[in-house]
């Protein structure tokens, strides 16, 4: 115990004369970041970023809304095409009822 006290006292009197570079701390963190990014693949980094974002309710809500908009958009485009096709069929059916030539063509 005594030795510990002595050691503490001795350490508290110890002064370091070596000058610390101005951006020492920033450089250390930059080196750590560079080391980490080299060791992890692009996929890992992307996955982490995306997983992190999904924990944010705003991001999750935006993704669901986007999905809904895309679904409705696809439904709209398909409905337009389907309606146009059925419209042409209905037009043809109407014309068949007033066109004796088309009528004869189909009935004979």
């Amino acid at each position, binding site marked *: 115990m005594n030795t510990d006290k002595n050691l503490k006292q001795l350490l508290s009197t110890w002064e370091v004369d070596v000058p610390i570079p101005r951006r020492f701390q920033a450089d250390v963190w930059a080196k750590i970041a560079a080391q980490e990014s080299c060791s992890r693949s692009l996929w890992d980094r992307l*996955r982490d970023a*995306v*997983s992190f974002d*999904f*924990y944010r309710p705003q991001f*999750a809500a935006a*993704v*669901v809304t*986007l*999905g*809904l*908009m*895309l*679904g*409705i958009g*696809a*439904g*709209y485009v*398909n*409905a*337009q095409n*389907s*309606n146009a096709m*059925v*419209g042409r*069929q*209905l*037009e043809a*059916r*109407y*014309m*068949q*009822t*007033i*066109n*004796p*030539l*088309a*009528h*004869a*063509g*189909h*009935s*004979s």
Partner: protein
Amino acid sequence: MKRAALVLLITLAVAVAGYFVFYEMATRPTRCMMAHQDCGMAWLRNEYHLTDAQFDKVMKMHDDYRPTCERMCQRIAVANEKLNALIASSHTVTPEIDATLKEWATLQNECRMAMLAHVYAVSAEMNPEDGQRYVKMATAQIVTPGMAHANLLAH
């Protein structure tokens, strides 16, 4: 990652539901028309924005025109058969084929005239813009060269 998968799954479900609900709603009117017994007239009413009064008049015109149309249809069918038989039984253009072809053409013109008169009468009952659009649509099929000829000759 589990949460991301859950959100993506919900997104997919919502997108699919959105697609089907919208598609169902947007195509319902045309599907109803298609299922209608007189779907051609139902289409005419919807496409040319006919009011109840306009539709009643057009429907009456249509019913009045129907016997004329059917009579002409029968005459055309008979003329087709006659012409086909003559063409099949000959290797050259005989005076009889020539005369039958002329009759056939005259009959076709009669049909076109009757149809055109009906189209004009129907268009007169519509709003001016719709009437113009209707005449354009119908006459395109009356005056288009080759209209129904391929069908007629094939039969």
